[in-house]
């Protein structure tokens, strides 16, 4: 993604590319918007997996309000059914698009095995309390009971950053528990 992010800065200068960019060959074509055929700026991806600049896709959707289909594969598509892609360092090259609605925000579904373990106690409060549930008690099985949102991604695979974070948090809470017991003993 860094290729797309770095050249999107060049592309933001009025839509023209710096000389030489066109000769980068097929590798950069991978991150080209399917509408303007330039490296995607403010990239969004559709449910069918096709990449666009948000301004380009927005204009396409405006052109045919009653026939919202993917410009590539003609699958159903909509403003609320695209996911923005944030490459590294893409925040500083944001140019103001007064006329366009802002690119749809990314959704942040909770990981399945950590969602809603303690309703009313840290629900939706981020990973802190939920990880406590996993680290200290075998409450993971409640997740499916309380999880009202179907179609979420499964538990993170081992070695993913999310997995590593959970491991870290569970270790952290074991230490908290040890300190707590220690405090009980000396008090």
């Amino acid at each position, binding site marked *: 993604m860094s290729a797309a992010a770095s050249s999107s800065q060049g592309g933001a200068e*009025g*839509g*023209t590319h710096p000389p030489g960019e*066109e000769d980068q060959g097929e590798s950069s074509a991978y991150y080209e918007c*399917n*509408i*303007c*055929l*330039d490296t995607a700026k403010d990239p969004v991806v559709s449910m069918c997996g*096709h990449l666009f600049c948000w301004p*380009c896709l927005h*204009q*396409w959707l405006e*052109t045919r309000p009653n*026939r919202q*289909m*993917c*410009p*590539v594969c*003609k699958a159903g598509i909509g403003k609320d059914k695209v996911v923005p892609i944030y490459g590294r360092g893409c925040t500083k090259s944001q140019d103001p698009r007064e006329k366009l609605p802002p690119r749809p925000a990314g959704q942040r579904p909770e990981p399945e095995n950590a969602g809603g373990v303690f309703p009313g106690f840290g629900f939706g409060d981020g990973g802190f309390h939920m990880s406590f549930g996993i680290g200290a008690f075998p409450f993971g099985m409640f997740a499916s009971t309380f999880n009202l949102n179907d179609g979420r991604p499964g538990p993170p695979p081992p070695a993913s950053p999310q997995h590593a974070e959970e491991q870290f948090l569970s270790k952290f809470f074991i230490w908290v528990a040890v300190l707590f017991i220690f405090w009980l003993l000396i008090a």
Partner: protein
Amino acid sequence: MANIAEARIKREFKEVVKSEEVAKCHIKVELVNDTFTELRGEIAGPPDTPYEGGNFILEIKIPDTYPFNPPKVKFVTKIWHPNISSVTGAICLDILKDQWAAAMTLRTVLLSLQALLAAAEPDDPQDAVVAKQYKENPKIFQDTAKHWTHIFAGDSKVAMITHMLELKQIKKIAISHHS
């Protein structure tokens, strides 16, 4: 012309020029003006069709709203086909109308037109007379389409023969004038 339209046509132009269909002489695009608003396309008649051996010239006009709206394409070369007007060259093809999608390109348009020559859709005709003949007298349709290809689409052998016949005629006239 809108910035995006021009930038895209420039890219597409390169794409078509580099494509393997061009290498095989199946399709071709040329610029008509510097502003990339008008182009001249060319497609070869597909093999095993009455259009085989012909080269069909197309007028391609790029609207300001391209690629959000389709290019305006029509046949310059006269052609006998149910979905193409034998008089104006206007084309009835869904992707040039409501089935257009912004990811389509000059290359896909030219290839679609070539496919249309290979597979007519007489139930969605542009030229009612041709479509009627296509359905009711397929043999006559084939012969007429072939004949039109030879006369208008520059089938080289036939063109040469007609050219030679014309030369003979001119000579005859010249000789008769001389004597």
